[in-house]
């Protein structure tokens, strides 16, 4: 397959993604492609708008008895909530049927992290406790996300958001949105056995790199990685190849070093 035909095939996948018919296991590759390619991002925006418009065709009259019953039930709950003043307390899982939450979030997480081994988020033995704390924090954040529908697809949204800042690097793109940093790589080389890629971050105004997560790309050279840092405090990110388990300081020439300015 030529580069041009491969590109056309990827753009067809972008259309499938926009329509929402792409299988979960293929979404990471397509999301990385969109994140790294301006034309793909424009096409995705255009086609997703067309796909979303399809919903309009479902706008048809509802049986009046059903509509009245539904409205009465809904408004009773809303009025009771407004009267009680428990606006904040009412938010959350209790306000929704259990079946509404969790699956969407799990799906989104599976999409984004399908090519990232989160279990490798341990750089050295000394980092284990910190990693566990981060994992616990992330678990809490995920639980919070389940109570807030807005955050369910946050990572995917961040990767594709028009207002995200994008920094080109050799294997793909570093994406920063609000306080979050992601790597969306599509051209990572295969690693020798016993080696992993490791992310590094340096605070603003510093050149001292701190170890971050380790990760391995999939067979297509794709990896989407959410860095467990506050992006507003990060001045530079880098990636290097390290032994499994990670290093405390880079032991090889970095694949890239990218200031986020």
């Amino acid at each position, binding site marked *: 397959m030529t580069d041009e035909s491969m590109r056309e095939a990827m753009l067809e996948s972008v259309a499938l993604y926009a329509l929402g018919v792409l299988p979960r296991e293929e979404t990471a590759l397509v999301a990385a492609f969109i994140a790294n390619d301006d034309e793909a991002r424009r096409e995705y925006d255009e086609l997703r708008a067309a796909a979303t418009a399809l919903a309009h065709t479902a706008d048809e009259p509802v049986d009046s008895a059903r509509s009245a019953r539904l409205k009465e039930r809904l408004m009773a709950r809303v009025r009771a909530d407004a009267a009680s003043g428990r606006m904040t307390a009412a938010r959350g899982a209790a306000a929704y049927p259990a079946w509404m939450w969790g699956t969407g979030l799990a799906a989104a997480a599976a999409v984004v992290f399908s090519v990232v081994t989160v279990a490798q988020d341990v750089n050295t033995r000394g980092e284990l406790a910190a990693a566990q704390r981060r994992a616990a924090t992330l678990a809490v954040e995920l639980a919070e996300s389940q109570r807030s529908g*807005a955050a369910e697809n946050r990572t995917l949204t961040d990767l594709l958001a028009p207002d995200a800042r994008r920094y080109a690097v050799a294997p793909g793109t570093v994406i920063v949105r609000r306080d979050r940093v992601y790597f969306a790589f599509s051209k990572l080389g295969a690693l020798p056995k016993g080696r992993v890629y490791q992310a590094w971050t340096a605070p603003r105004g510093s050149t001292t790199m701190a170890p971050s997560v380790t990760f391995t790309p999939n067979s297509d050279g794709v990896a989407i990685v959410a860095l467990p840092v506050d992006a507003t405090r990060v001045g530079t990110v880098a990636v290097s190849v390290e032994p499994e388990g990670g290093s405390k300081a880079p032991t090889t020439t970095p694949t890239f070093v990218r200031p986020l300015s």
Partner: protein
Amino acid sequence: MDPGVRLMERVQARDVAAFESLYDGYHRLVFGIGLRILGDPTMAEDLTQTVFLKVWTAPEAFRGGSFVAWVSRVARNRALDVLRARSVRPEIEIPADLPLEGSLDDDVLSRLDAQRVRDALAQLPPEQRGLIEMGFFGGVTHQELARRTDTPLGTVKTRIRSGLRRLRQALGEHAAP
């Protein structure tokens, strides 16, 4: 401006009357999406209630753009969640959710109505239209679409891309001020 946006501003201030207006204006759309995807009026009713409860209890989830586009995406994604959670059709792989946040074209979407979209859709060749509708409301992957329509996978991909591009072009013409 999308009238839903103004109403949402009031809902965020806990205005019950604004919420009622939102419900009156958009419940048909949400119920219709649920019915088309779930194929069951009772499940569509539950979905409608859940989506509007979300509007009331978590209005901050709407971050601007077109309300109708946002609530449509919420409804579709929740309906797909229902398919997954209840394993209505466990033999079928259900595709991933789409991100919820608005796109650059939200303003275009807010100027559309059902008839305009139906008119634009009617301009597509039947083989493109069928795949796109089945894909959007069927909650199935493109492989499943190929299987159901007995069409080669590559043809399905090409038809979906071509059809969406033509639809976008037709909607752009309709939505032009």
